């Protein structure tokens, strides 16, 4: 049985995390990253960057923040960033990323949720999975 990365934190929640309908899939995926693919924050779920920020949220949202945000295609990833930058301005680059990275998420890397209408899905990696070696920067955001 595979162990999830951050499993003790996932198990601490009263909700099922990852949700039961998440499963392993083979998908091409895109993610916003910082200038170097090795940047510590690139594949760290938001929760683990600042857990206190999420303490007051419902457990479903905490669970969501413990997963990685990925997109199934470049256009969706760029459209979403463009939308957020309209609101956040150039500060979006400081907090969300500066580049778009592309890689493959395989069924034995972890479990993925359903892809929503924004082309976005949440992914929970298994222990030992390192996307800094399998994702490559595809271009500037």
């Amino acid at each position, binding site marked *: 049985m595979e162990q999830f990365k951050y499993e003790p934190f996932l198990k601490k929640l009263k909700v099922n995390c990852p949700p039961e309908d998440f499963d392993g899939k083979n998908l091409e995926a895109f993610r916003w990253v910082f200038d170097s693919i090795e940047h510590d924050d690139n594949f760290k*779920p*938001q929760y683990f960057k600042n857990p206190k920020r999420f303490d007051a949220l419902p457990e479903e949202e905490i669970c969501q923040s413990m997963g990685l945000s990925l997109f199934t295609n470049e256009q969706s990833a760029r459209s979403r960033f463009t939308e957020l930058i309209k609101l956040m301005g150039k500060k979006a680059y400081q907090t969300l990323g500066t580049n778009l990275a592309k890689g493959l998420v395989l069924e034995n890397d972890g479990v993925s949720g359903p892809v929503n209408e924004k082309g976005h899905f949440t992914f929970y990696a298994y222990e030992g999975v390192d996307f800094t070696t399998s994702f490559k920067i595809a271009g500037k955001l």
Partner: protein
Amino acid sequence: MMMQPFDEYKITGLDFKLRKLGNLLYHEGPIETHYVNENDEDYLLLWVDGDDEFNRWLLFKTTIPLLDDFFQKELTTLDLIHKNPDGFIYLIDIDDNLVHRRFYKLPVKKIPGDYLPSRASFFEELQFEDYALQLKNYLSLHLLRHGKAYPNQARSSVSLAAEPDGPGFEKPA
């Protein structure tokens, strides 16, 4: 990198409490969130800046008609800030423990340019959260029935009272 200080606009806290109603825009955390105060006056809270110690949020009052215009794509989030009935906004610095450490009250014209949304910050159904879509539909229905939802829509916030620690946001249940 330290965030811009606004010492001349510092206040001790807010003189009202806020209750979160929902996220309009969310990506790995709230980006634009809808709140109401004790008098059911509407506020929007936007993330605008952050450093190693704090996240800075911009809080401003809005009204149901303004929100409806926003959802009808007649106004942008930038317009909502400029048209807010108070004529001023609050900046709130919140630390990693969710303690509200610093409060500033700025006239709209003193907001730094890089804290303002773009002129293209229109509502986009595809990109906003389910809560935003529900609110849009609710407001459309409400305004259709009543013509005007806010008899006191232009009422300003009451003046700020000195409160040693300043009230925090209510934690959602």
